[in-house]
C-alpha cells in the first residue's frame, strides 16, 4: 500500500519537475545569452553588457519602450478604476437589468482572439475619425485589461465576509461610507495586484496594439516583432531580459500585496 503511494508520488514529482523545467529553461537560456559577448547568438563569447549598451543607444527602440510604459501606466490605471467599479456592481449589485449582458461583455474578452478585438476596435476608431496613436492604444488596452481587473477584484469581493459591511451599516454608516471604510481597505491588495496584472498585460500586447496604433507610434512589442521577423539579434535578448526583470519586480510586489491581503482574510484571487 505504502509503496504504491510512494511510486505514485515519485511519478507526480517527476511530472512536476519536468513541467517546471519546460516552463523555465527557455527563459533562462534567453537571459544567459543576453550577456553574451559574441555577435553569434548561440556561440558563447564570454560575459558582456555590450547588447545592453546597444539597446540604450537605440533611439527608435527606446522611444517604443517609453511609449509602451506610458500606455501601460495610463491604461492600467483607467482599467483598475473601471474594473473595480464593475466588480462592485457584479459582486454587490444583486440583480439589475442587463446583468447577464454586462458579465458576458466582461468575461468574453478574457479569451476572445486578439485579432478580433483589435480589428473591431480599429474599425470603431476609424468610424469615429479618431487620430490613431497613444490614446487609441490606451483605450484599447483599457478595454481588454479592465476585464482581468474585474475578475480579480470580484473574486476577492465574493470571498469577503459581508457581515462586516452589515455591522458597519447597523452602526449607522450609509452604504457608501460602509464600503469606503470597511470593504475598500480589505480589497486594496487585490486592487494593487490587479493594477500590476493590467500593467504587464498592456506591456505585453502585440496584436491589439498593431491594429489600433498609428504611424510613428509603435510600442515596444511592435518593434520587437518587426526585428524578430528579420532574425534573432542579441540586442533583442537584452531587451527581453530587461522586460523580464521589470515584470519580476512587479510580481514580487504583487505577491507581497496578496500576502498582505491573505493575512487579513482568506486567500487572494488566483491571478
Amino acid at each position, binding site marked *: 500500500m505504502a509503496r504504491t503511494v510512494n511510486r505514485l508520488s515519485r511519478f507526480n514529482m517527476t511530472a512536476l519537475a519536468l513541467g517546471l523545467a519546460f516552463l523555465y529553461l527557455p527563459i533562462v537560456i534567453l537571459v544567459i545569452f543576453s550577456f553574451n559577448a559574441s555577435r553569434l547568438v548561440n556561440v558563447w563569447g564570454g560575459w558582456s553588457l555590450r547588447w545592453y549598451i546597444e539597446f540604450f543607444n537605440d533611439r527608435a527602440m527606446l522611444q517604443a519602450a517609453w511609449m509602451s510604459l506610458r500606455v501601460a501606466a495610463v491604461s492600467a490605471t483607467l482599467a483598475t478604476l473601471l474594473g473595480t467599479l464593475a466588480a462592485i456592481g457584479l459582486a454587490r449589485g444583486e440583480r439589475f437589468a442587463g446583468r447577464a449582458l454586462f458579465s458576458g461583455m466582461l468575461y468574453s474578452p478574457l479569451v476572445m482572439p486578439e*485579432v478580433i478585438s483589435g480589428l*473591431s476596435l480599429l474599425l*470603431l476608431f476609424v468610424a469615429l475619425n479618431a487620430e490613431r496613436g497613444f490614446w487609441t492604444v490606451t483605450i484599447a488596452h483599457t478595454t481588454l485589461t479592465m476585464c482581468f481587473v474585474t475578475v480579480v477584484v470580484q473574486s476577492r469581493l465574493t470571498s469577503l465576509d459581508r457581515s462586516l459591511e452589515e455591522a458597519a451599516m447597523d452602526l449607522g454608516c450609509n452604504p457608501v461610507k460602509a*464600503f469606503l471604510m470597511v470593504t475598500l481597505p480589505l480589497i486594496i491588495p487585490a486592487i494593487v495586484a490587479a493594477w500590476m496584472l493590467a500593467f504587464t498585460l498592456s506591456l505585453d500586447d502585440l496584436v491589439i496594439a498593431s*491594429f489600433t496604433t498609428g504611424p510613428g507610434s509603435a510600442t515596444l512589442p511592435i518593434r520587437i516583432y518587426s526585428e524578430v521577423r528579420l532574425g534573432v539579434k542579441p540586442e533583442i535578448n537584452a531587451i527581453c531580459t530587461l522586460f523580464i526583470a521589470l515584470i519580476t519586480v512587479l510580481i514580487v510586489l504583487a505577491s507581497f500585496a496578496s500576502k498582505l491581503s491573505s493575512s487579513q482574510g482568506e486567500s487572494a484571487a488566483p491571478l
Partner: protein
Amino acid sequence: MSTRRIFARPARYAAIAPYLWMALFFLVPFGIVVKISLSQTAIAQPPYTPVFELGEGWEAFKAAFEQLSLDNFRLLVSDNLYILSYLRSLVVAVTSTLILLVIGYPIAYGMARLPQRWQGIAMILVIVPFWTSFLIRIYAWINILQHDGLLNRILLALHLVSEPVAWLSTDTAMYIGIVYSYLPFMILPLYATLAKMDRALLEAAEDLGASPLKAFWLVTFPLSLPGVGAGILLCFIPIVGEFVIPDLLAGSNSLMIGQTLWLEFFTNKDWPVASAVAIALLVLLVPPLVLYDRLQRRQVEGGR
C-alpha cells in the same frame, strides 16, 4: 438581509461607467465589423465603401439595406484559401488542446499532491511565465530551435543527428510554441479542482479493492471534469484565433485563420473581407464562448 438590499443600489450605480465603456468599446465595434463585412471593397481611405450612415434617417437606411452585399461571405465560402485556413485553425486548436491536457494533467496532479505549504509556491511558479510576454517566450524558442540553435547543437554533440535539423518554420515548432505559451492556462483550472478534492474518496476506493490506476480513473478523473472543461475552453478558444505563434514559428504554406485575417487587413488592405473573416471566426467561437461564460460566472460568483 435588508442591509444587503440597501447596499445593492449604490453598487448598481457603480456599474454604470464600466457598463457604458464596455458597450462603446466592445459591443458597438462588433456592430461596425458586421456593417463593414457587408460593404464593398474600395481603393480609398478608409478602404471600403460605407453601406449606410446612421445620420441619414430611416429612408436612407432602408435604401441602403437593399444594397447590403453578402459578396464577402460568398467569397469566404467559395475560395479554398479561407475554408482551408478555418480547418487548419480547428485542427491545430484541437490537437494542441489535447497535447496540453495530456501534459498539463500530471503537472496539476503533482501540484495538488504537494504538501500544503509547497502548493502556493508551485502555483506562483506556474503563474510567473504567464506574466512574462508572449512574444518573449516565442522569441526564446526561436533562439533554441534555429539552425545553429541550442537544440541542434545538443543533438549534434550527442550524435543523435548527423546534420542540423530544420526545426523553425515547421508545425512541430508551432506546436511547441503553443503548448509552451498556453500550459499555465491548462494547469491552473485543473489544479484548482484537483486541490479541492476530498482525498478520503480515493482512500475509500482503494480500501474497497480498486487499484490506484482504477481509483484514479473511476474517482479522481470524473471529479476533475469541471477543471478539465475550463482548461480546454481557456486554451481552445484563443488558440483558434492565434496569430503570433504560427506567424513566427510555423511555415508559411498553410495559414491559420488569425493569420489570414491579419494578411487581408495589413497586406491586402481588404477591410471588408477581413471583417467577414472575423465574423465567421466569431460565429465558430460562439458555442465555446457561451459555455465559458457560464463556467466563469459560476466560478467567480460562487453558488449564486
